[in-house]
């Protein structure tokens, strides 16, 4: 028992290193917030652009969506951070993580929004046009409000899954929760900082995970 307390909940070590790990907590929050804004905003913009059904543009969009839906997040982060410098583009760990995860989320969000837009019955378009609404007002005032509601459960789950990827930033030495806990563990030769990191992840993600179950029930199949 003592051994476990000493190793995993060592108060002396925790008091020494918690400021660094708390700093990491804020880095994680900042990265997650930026990824959500860039990813969902970008995804919505891509879905709207796709609704115009311009052939060349759609080919580019489908390429973007397929690429970032297919690649593992960590591979994208590593390529952005370690390979791009050879092409003359050097990014900070923070920028590389935000950019990589933002691109991944934008691809998933775009696909979800597009499916949702396409699942709105054709009659909605036709009746809005018959009432004299143009293409854009129909899209923004009639179709999107319904489509976004349909997209919410899938989008929530996907967003949570991707912002959990902020921990992957530690692979490119981003000092987020996991990264700062690992350096503290290395210096202290004691895994208590990891316990603190685990607790912080629970505080951050457990409410989101629990909430996502209720959102799914509230907005899921059968909801009107």
């Amino acid at each position, binding site marked *: 028992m003592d051994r476990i307390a000493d190793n995993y909940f060592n108060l002396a070590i925790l008091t020494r290193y918690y400021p660094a790990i708390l700093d990491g907590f804020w880095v994680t929050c900042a990265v997650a917030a930026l990824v959500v804004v860039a990813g969902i905003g970008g995804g919505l913009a891509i879905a709207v652009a796709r609704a115009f059904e311009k052939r060349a543009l759609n080919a580019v969009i489908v390429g973007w969506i397929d690429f970032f*839906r297919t690649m593992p997040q960590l*591979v994208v982060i590593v390529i952005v951070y370690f390979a791009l410098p050879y092409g003359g583009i050097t990014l900070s760990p923070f920028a590389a993580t935000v950019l990589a995860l933002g691109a991944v989320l934008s691809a998933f969000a775009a696909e979800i929004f597009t499916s949702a837009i396409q699942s709105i019955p054709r009659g909605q378009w036709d009746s809005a046009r018959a009432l004299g609404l143009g293409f854009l007002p129909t899209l923004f005032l009639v179709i999107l409000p319904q489509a976004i509601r349909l997209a919410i459960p899938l989008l929530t789950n996907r967003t949570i899954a991707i912002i959990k990827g902020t921990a992957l930033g530690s692979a490119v030495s981003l000092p987020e929760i996991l990264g700062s806990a690992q350096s503290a563990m290395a210096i202290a030769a004691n895994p208590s900082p990891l316990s603190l990191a685990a607790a912080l992840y629970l505080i951050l993600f457990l409410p989101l995970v629990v909430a996502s179950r209720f959102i799914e029930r509230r907005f899921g199949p059968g909801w009107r």
Partner: protein
Amino acid sequence: MEGLHLFLDNFANLASLTRVYPLLLQGLWLTVLLAVVAVPLATAVGLLIAIAYSFHRRALNVALLVYIDFFRSFPVLVLLVLVFFGLPFVGLTLDGFSAAILALVLNNSGYYGEIFRAGIEAVPMGQRDAARALGLRPLPTVFLVVLPQALRAVIAPLASNSLELVKTTAVASMVALPELLRSARVALEQTYNPTPLMAAGVIYFVLLWPFARLVARLERRMLTRQ
């Protein structure tokens, strides 16, 4: 022309590729092995959780939901670091492969469990009552009546989660397991050239793209059916 030459030299360097491709191939093999072990294992544990949940024993269900949400809340990498670097301090040392499998299965059995659970709960209670009325015992009722209907409803999220699991095997590179990504990074350090990394990217894409398309199609069909 000069620019293109420089670009190819850096990102598609044949000399570098011929030197490192055995390493990449070895990495690919390990990635496939991780996926082949982790996907069935996590699916099985998830299915067991969901079946246990379907009997609606209150205390058991609370425990199962806690398990599901607890392990879904951690990023896989955090679980992996806890297992690989944390456990040795109490004398439990796992090699990279076992640690990666354990972390992947803990996290994904939560995801699979939630998917199966939601699918089973969506089957109307009347199906179960009718099966019981026909004289089926609880277990045959679950396996012959409830599960077949539940599975059909959750094919899309199942496929999507399995794809995500295979993609997540790349985190094993963080505990020095020489799977595809790790091999590529080692090769990058040997050749001072990002070609191996680009090659690994291409391998991941070629390997996973058909599945990504399939998942997209299944998800789309599910949304339209609503």
